[in-house]
């Protein structure tokens, strides 16, 4: 599968955040998890969100994923302002436009890999007959064809994350969001997963936003590094590392600050 039809080929921003804020009230104190972040991510770009824990990088990712709503500001993904969408539309957006992978894999323990991968298709009401083959195909792509009927607990961390990737891509989203995808993996399996993510980014022209606190990893794979601290954007560098440049088609944006 390469350059699937329907994927935007232009360099228009896939994600546009304007003065994005997410504040929580925790007892008496107001926590500014995201505090006035403005950024653009172009279609097909591979962006890493970097920062120490509590910097607000996961909160930004959740806002882009439509799992959370901004307190103020806007996130516009493919010309839709997520803050304006109804809960129902937001669910549809998560179902069709976004694929997510997490540090803790988040596979459903009681289901086999095939069932886990099938689950988004159930929500999308894909025909029952097609689902089995599609799930198998997706698991084959991440090298897990032999494991389709295994439960997550019977698999290694790397295998679980590969299954999670297969699930994230099953409804052919344009956006892949990864929250510390290698955080629970050793460096070898981490590399394996990241190679897959890069492959999807380059072959399927998917826009990838990855949250990580490992700068080396980000430099190795991302085309652009965005730094956050205390909920604010503190740095936005186009990555000069050769590895990240390989096969690039998207131009990085200049520093905003």
């Amino acid at each position, binding site marked *: 599968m390469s350059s699937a039809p329907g994927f935007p080929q232009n360099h228009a921003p896939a994600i546009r955040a304007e003065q994005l804020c997410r504040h929580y009230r925790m007892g008496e104190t107001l926590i500014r998890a995201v505090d006035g972040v403005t950024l653009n991510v172009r279609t097909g770009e591979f962006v890493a969100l970097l920062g120490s824990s509590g910097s607000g990088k996961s909160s930004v990712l959740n806002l882009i994923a439509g799992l959370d709503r901004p307190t103020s500001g806007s996130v516009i993904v493919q010309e839709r302002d997520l803050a304006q969408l109804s809960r129902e539309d937001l669910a549809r957006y998560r179902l069709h436009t976004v694929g997510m992978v997490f540090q803790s894999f988040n596979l459903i323990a009681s*289901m086999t890999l095939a069932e886990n991968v099938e689950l988004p298709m159930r929500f999308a009401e894909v025909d029952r007959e097609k689902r089995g083959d599609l799930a198998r195909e997706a698991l084959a792509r991440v090298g897990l064809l032999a494991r389709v009927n295994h439960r997550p607990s019977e698999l290694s961390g790397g295998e679980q994350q590969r299954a999670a990737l297969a699930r994230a891509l099953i409804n052919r989203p344009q956006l892949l969001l990864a929250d510390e995808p290698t955080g629970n993996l050793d460096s070898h399996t981490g590399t394996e997963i990241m190679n897959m993510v890069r492959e999807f980014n380059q072959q399927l022209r998917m826009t990838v936003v990855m949250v990580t606190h490992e700068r080396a990893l980000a430099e190795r794979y991302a085309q652009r590094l965005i730094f956050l601290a205390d909920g604010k954007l503190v740095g936005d560098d186009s990555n000069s590392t050769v590895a990240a440049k390989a096969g690039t088609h998207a131009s990085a944006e200049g520093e905003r600050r």
Partner: protein
Amino acid sequence: MKLPDLTELAVRNLRESVLRNSLTTIGISVGVASLVAMLSLGIGLQQPASRRLMKSGLFDTVVVTSRRDLRNFNREEERSGPAPGESRILDEPTRREIERLPNVLEAYPDIRFITELRFEDKPHLTMVAALPPSAQSNDAFDAVQGHFFSTDIAPEVILQKTFAEELLGKTPRVGIDETNVAELAAPLLGKELTMRYAQRETTEAAGSKATNDSSTAPADRSLAGAAYSVVSREQKLKIVGVADLDPESMRGPTRARVFLPLKLAESLHAMQPTDLREISRSANDEPVYSSVSVRVKSPSQIQAVEDTVKKMGFNTFSILDASRSVQQFFKVLDVFLGIFGSLALAVAFIGIVNTLVMAILERRREIGIMKAIGASDGDIRKLFFAEAGAMGVLGGIVGVALGWAIGQVINLGTNIYLKRQSFPPEHFWAVPWWLVAFAVVFSFLVSLAAGLYPAGRAARLDPVQALRYE
């Protein structure tokens, strides 16, 4: 999400914590079982009672009596309306008037008298009543062995089964309903009975000395034409049928034990108990009746006909009057039993809520994952509804089976007791099909209602928080 997917996921989730969900389902089953048990007890108790009422075959009949009779079924009626002495006489013109009322099929006099019947030279004293030809279509005469009267004037007779037993010299067993009528009828059909009765003969003129061979009725000389004499007569009758009627059933022609065709009975001019009293009134030869049975087109018109006849100045009585209070009693009983039965279901309701709320806490993360990969609030809500509904249907089915089993055990127990007390067996427990369907559907709906709160709560769960939950 589509229904098959929902069901599949719901069943899978229920299987994940088998013990807890089984216990909850058992709770529902016990609730449904108690509801089914209570309601079927109510229905079961009602059935023998209404069966007996139906057997009387009087559901479309109004019995009209004159207020002169001084006996009334209703005290209120006694107080209102004209005094007994001034009220109308129930005679032939009145009968014809009643027969012309709308929705009245026929109005026939109740002719009944106590007399002696000889069978194989043995005398038997019993109540004889006349039956109109229309009685043939009456439910009560459905089970006649032999046949109905060939004509309305034929010298034929139908026996009530206990009288048939008496004729054959069998002692009727108290309370036992299941007499084999065919067995009784076989030796009797076609045999002859001799009926001895007192015939009333109008004597020609006042003052003339009316002499009879048997008995005399002292006539008031001042009332011209009102005198009559009483003659003893005999009439041979052929037994054509034996009826499976309940001797203890309600008032009406079926209370007699021997039945004659109406026209024949009328032609006999048999002395009636009321004749003696009416002698002071009846100035002509028109017969006066103690009561007239009025057949109405359908039971729903009984009330209207009764009201009209009452306005004419007569007392009326119908089985509906008697059964109305009985029906009311059973309705109240059903409601009470239903409430008791529902108590257990209410406890089960709380059980479902508890189980599902626990499931939300346990599966919080799973709900978060589902939402993250695209499940809508509606999908999550439906999933929890499906789980509640599945428990409800399963609990309902098991509950109905359980309730039925309890009923069978109680039936068995009561019948052993009844047998010891030498009462006939009864089915106090009836589980009709509509109750089975009702119980399962009701259990399903109750479970859905119980799922309302947990499902809403699960649907509103914040995915970010849920995903953070370990």
